[in-house]
């Protein structure tokens, strides 16, 4: 997507936030700044001097460093080795390099342990290693691409402390995000991008999240709040004592799911919170039937589905919005109408008997595109050419078109712009009103709290805590996600624990 | 629907194109009538320089070139050929006016039969096969008889009383070599053990894979076998190479006198003798008959009696056992010994 008329001024020694919807042009701008893409016209000035950034090497030489959203670390190497990899010329690979690393780590409070293997590090630690890598190469200006997407609230706070430390040492940070609360709490200046152009520069102290969001979308702010309850007494999905173990790459058998029991009623949204990798993905796969269970039962609308195939389960009324839509929900190089058939090939209008009904499938794709506001020039384009939000709208539209009894939505608005996010939330709310049961898994705690009727927290393959979304705060939920709290979470409980932590 | 029509259109268009072209077109032969151009020689797998079978045929045409002044053109088979490829090769010769057209090897059996029908004016010859046809000269050899003599020599020369046979491909022709060899060994020294192995069960690659023969011979040598007879076309060179590296071991060559082959000169001191198939004589006979205007047709068997198969004496390694070999030959010629064609 092309950018035009971008005006951005970043002051030295500040945290400058760049925010906009997904697809607004943040990534392109970032690539230009980091020398990965050349601008057609316009100039970049660094310290009053015009700079031509042809390659990332140019950018690094000019003191610009970038921390990518997806970490670029070698798991089986130590932190030290990862840092010096590719920069061996600077300080060698031995004691000098180690001293330099410790110096940087201490200066900015990064708490780096140079000899630990990267594979043993948590997400937040890895991120700090990435930051250190950039600093080690002499960066004075850091670009951070959506750094908080992978962190829990406590880790976000720690990251922000690091950023403030960097700032106080005179470094400049460009912080890319579409999470408004974070932007407002850490940034000194904010530039908003919409449809490839800068629409506003604002000061955080004079801006509310609502105003900021409106600038980003160009319209009113959506909210995930759902209040009037539609929960009924009729159980729709029953999951009883689900157990699952898996063999990891070292041949060790680990328990992935243990004693998972819950019921979702008609008209109820059950939210599952948890740090990624605690069994949420496996829970979804177990319910979808793509993993065979070691024990336990899955019932849908009174029907035992424990032994049914994935296709039987889908035909039985499970709609599925998977976490990784590129891997699990789309054929990226196939046209939209073929993607509309995917997962529902045995159902009308996609097929009649054993034959496909291409005309009907195409027509119905047109309908989904119109009804669910999928922004595309036509249904013959490949799924890969749509933006994330539009892909997701197509997926939600497809799943809802088959009138499911249960909708499984895993991170439904991840990597989706604010506009699409609002529409997807609205779809989930509508589904709930119509009496669907919804299993919602998300890392976005606002989304979880806002949409769910019941909340559960998953930790190391078990449902360890539950909470009432009406009273819980993201911070309280966050501490349960790290295993620090269990049982029924109430506001008071969380408060006392937090008080205790402070002492 | 759109796609169905597009598909159908494309398919029928190409079909139409193909069939109209074939139905009304002219054939190459009709367009290119040629007069006498010389001798066409189509080789089996391995090509002219296989140091054995094909080379023997080539020698026959060389003689004809020198003595009769005829022109010669040679073409070679590829691995994995089909009947159609062979027919095309033979037809190309006939179309261009080559006469006679000779296929070396029984692989040409069926193709000669088919092509000979289309070119009744041309004489065809084939080595090692007996196809039907009024204008076909079938040249067959008593490989089993020659191999019998090789067996006699091997039994007499083996110190360990262990001899081996390596066949290129397990087919009817090579089995004749195996049968004769085994019988010759048995009749001479019943105590001597014969090990017979093939490189490939049914892939023509066996005549074109010296590396496989080398490995096979190496295995035999390791088990104490000290005389190895290989009937494997070009692959045989691999076996000879392996044998040359083992002191005291003998190789028996096939088809041509391999002691005299320039390509094998490095190893000639281990080549005890060779079962020579006088393909060159047969080929020369056919060319001469065509030149004389009385082309040979029908089956011509080149057996021991007619000296179609002989045992080479180059190198003089079998001089000491020549009397026994001559005696064995005599018995075959007189019919006192009947050599079997299958093992």
């Amino acid at each position: 997507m092309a950018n035009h008329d971008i005006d951005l001024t970043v002051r030295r020694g500040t945290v400058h936030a760049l925010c906009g919807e997904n697809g607004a042009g943040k990534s392109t701008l970032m690539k230009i700044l980091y020398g990965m893409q050349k601008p057609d016209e316009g100039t970049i000035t660094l310290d009053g001097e015009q700079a031509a950034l042809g390659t990332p090497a140019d950018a690094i030489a000019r003191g610009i460093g970038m921390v990518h959203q997806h970490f670029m670390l070698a798991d089986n190497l130590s932190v030290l080795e990862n840092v010096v990899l590719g920069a061996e010329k600077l300080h060698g690979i031995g004691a000098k390099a180690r001293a330099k690393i410790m110096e940087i780590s201490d200066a900015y409070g990064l708490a780096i342990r140079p000899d630990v293997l990267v594979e043993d590090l948590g997400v937040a630690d890895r991120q700090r290693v990435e930051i250190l890598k950039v600093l080690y190469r002499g960066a004075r200006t850091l670009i951070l691409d959506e750094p908080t997407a992978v962190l829990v609230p406590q880790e976000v706070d720690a990251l922000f402390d690091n950023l403030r430390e960097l700032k106080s040492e005179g470094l400049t940070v460009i912080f890319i995000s579409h999470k408004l609360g974070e932007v407002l709490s850490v940034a000194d200046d904010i530039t908003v991008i919409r449809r490839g152009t800068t629409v506003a520069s604002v000061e955080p102290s004079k801006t509310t999240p609502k105003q900021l969001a409106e600038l980003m979308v160009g319209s009113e702010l959506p909210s995930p709040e759902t209040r009037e309850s539609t929960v009924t007494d009729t159980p729709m999905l029953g999951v009883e004592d689900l157990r699952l173990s898996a063999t990891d790459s070292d041949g060790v058998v680990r328990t992935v799911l243990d004693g998972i029991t819950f019921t979702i009623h008609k008209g109820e949204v059950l939210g599952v919170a948890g740090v990624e990798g605690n069994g949420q993905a496996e829970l979804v796969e177990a319910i979808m039937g793509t993993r065979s269970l070691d024990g336990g039962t899955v019932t849908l609308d009174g029907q035992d589905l424990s032994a049914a195939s994935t296709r039987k389960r889908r035909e039985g009324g499970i709609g599925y919005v998977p976490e990784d839509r590129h891997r699990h929900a789309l054929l990226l190089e196939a046209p939209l109408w073929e993607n509309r058939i995917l997962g529902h090939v045995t159902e009308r209008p996609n097929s009649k008997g054993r034959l496909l009904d291409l005309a009907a499938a195409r027509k119905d794709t047109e309908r989904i595109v119109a009804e669910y506001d999928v922004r595309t020039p036509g249904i013959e384009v490949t799924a890969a050419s749509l933006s994330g939000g539009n892909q997701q709208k197509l997926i939600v539209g497809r799943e809802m078109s088959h009138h499911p009894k249960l909708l499984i939505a895993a991170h439904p608005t991840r990597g989706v712009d604010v506009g699409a996010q609002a529409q997807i939330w609205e779809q989930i709310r509508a589904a709930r009103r119509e009496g669907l049961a919804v299993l919602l898994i998300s890392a976005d705690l606002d989304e979880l709290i806002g949409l769910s009727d019941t909340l559960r927290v998953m930790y190391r393959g078990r449902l360890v805590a539950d909470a009432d979304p009406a009273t819980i705060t993201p911070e309280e939920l966050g501490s349960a996600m790290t295993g620090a709290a269990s049982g029924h979470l109430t506001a008071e409980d969380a408060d006392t624990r937090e008080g205790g932590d402070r002492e | 629907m759109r796609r169905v029509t597009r598909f159908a259109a494309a398919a029928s268009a190409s079909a139409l194109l193909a069939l109209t072209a074939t139905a009304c077109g002219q054939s190459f032969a009709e367009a290119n009538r040629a007069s006498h151009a010389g001798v066409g020689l189509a080789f089996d797998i391995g090509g002219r320089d296989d140091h054995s079978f094909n080379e023997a045929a080539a020698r026959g045409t060389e003689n004809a070139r020198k003595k009769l002044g005829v022109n010669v053109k040679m073409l070679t088979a590829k691995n994995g050929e089909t009947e159609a490829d062979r027919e095309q090769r033979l037809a190309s010769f006939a179309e261009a006016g080559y006469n006679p057209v000779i296929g070396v090897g029984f692989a040409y059996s069926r193709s000669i039969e088919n092509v000979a029908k289309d070119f009744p004016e041309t004489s065809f010859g084939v080595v090692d096969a007996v196809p039907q046809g009024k204008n076909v000269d079938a040249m067959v050899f008593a490989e089993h008889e020659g191999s019998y003599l090789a067996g006699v020599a091997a039994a007499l020369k083996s110190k360990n009383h262990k001899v081996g046979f390596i066949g290129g491909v397990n087919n009817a022709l090579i089995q004749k070599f195996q049968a004769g060899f085994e019988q010759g060994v048995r009749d001479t020294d019943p105590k001597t053990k014969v090990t017979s192995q093939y490189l490939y069960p049914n892939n023509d690659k066996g005549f074109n894979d010296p590396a496989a023969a080398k490995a096979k011979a190496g295995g035999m040598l390791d088990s104490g076998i000290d005389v190895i007879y290989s009937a494997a076309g070009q692959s045989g060179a691999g076996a000879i190479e392996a044998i040359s590296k083992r002191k005291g071991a003998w190789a028996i060559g096939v088809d041509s006198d391999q002691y005299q082959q320039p390509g094998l000169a490095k190893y000639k001191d281990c080549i005890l003798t060779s079962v020579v198939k006088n393909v060159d004589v047969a080929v020369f006979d056919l060319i001469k008959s065509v030149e004389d205007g009385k082309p040979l047709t029908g089956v011509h068997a080149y057996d021991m009696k007619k000296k179609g198969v002989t045992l080479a004496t180059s190198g003089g390694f079998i001089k000491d056992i020549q009397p026994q070999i001559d005696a064995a030959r005599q018995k075959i010629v007189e019919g006192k010994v009947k050599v079997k064609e299958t093992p």
Partner: protein
Amino acid sequence: MKTLTRSFTKDKVLLALAAPLLAIAAAFVISSLVFLASGENPLRAYWIMADYGHYSDSQVWIINKAVPYYLSALAVAIGFRMNLFNIGVDGQYRLAAFAAAAVGGAIALPGALQIILLIVIAMLVGALWSGIAGVLKTSRGVSEVITTIMLNAIAASVIGYFLQDGRLAIKDGNLLHTRFLPESSHFFSFPTHPKPVYGFVVIAALAGFVYWFVLNRTRFGFDLRAVGASEPAAEASGVSVKRMVVISMLLSGAAAGLVGMPTLLGESFNYGTDFPAGIGFTGIAIALLGRNHPVGMAFGALLWAFLDRTGSRLEFEGYAQEIVGVIQGVIVLCVVIAYEIVRRYGLRAQQRKVGEELAAQARTNENDKAEATA
């Protein structure tokens, strides 16, 4: 909206044409360099090939040769559409043809019945042989590439064992072959000039149509393509990937079973030591050439046969025998590379275009809104 869709299809057609044209141009250039490097005149070579190829006997020859090539390519393509690499088509068709020939020589059913029986036997044997690889892949995780190569070797040995005098073969001079099929199992042929064209060309065309129809018009075909496009997505959509692997291997083997039939029922009428081998490998090249598309592979098979035919002519005219093999390899490489380049370019172009269209739409919408408020 309508016009946009149309412009996208137009682009698609242009892109579809760009790839083969690019490939042909590149192949011409590289082949010419090969000719020049070997000290030959490329233009004369092309002229010889074109001239020789246009005669009717060449064309009959080419079509007849292309029929087994095409069937072999279909068998390979079924696997390719599933991301399976069936290298074993060679062993499958030979074993299948051998079994059909052995049965066909032993019994004599009236007319068409015998032909149908033999074709069914061949397809079953081919499917059985490839099915082994499918089952091993799903049950034990062995790569089908390895197993099918091994099964090729085993098939050759099995045939070698039975194709002996006194077992299933009879000796005919220096050839060994199964008993001749009775007249009733001779397939019809088209009386073209000067030689007939195999009637089996009809079966090949039919097989191509069935391939296309099943893949593009049935639920099963959709599932198969989905697995080929993205295994995890197919699994999540409810396809049993393991079952699909076995089924598609069986289908691939069944198609491979047809490869030997034009020769067996139309020309040799027995399976002998001179039965053509290696067509299974040629099929891989042709499936790549034709991009697994039924019409594309038909052109690919004809092109390959054309090169076989005219290449031998080049040898006759004094060119090196190996040069045609080089040209065939160059063409396959050029096609594969050209298609990949064009595919990537197309994907990028489409993404850009979608972005531009949407931006334009958004701008007009905004203007409309602005006017409305004004």
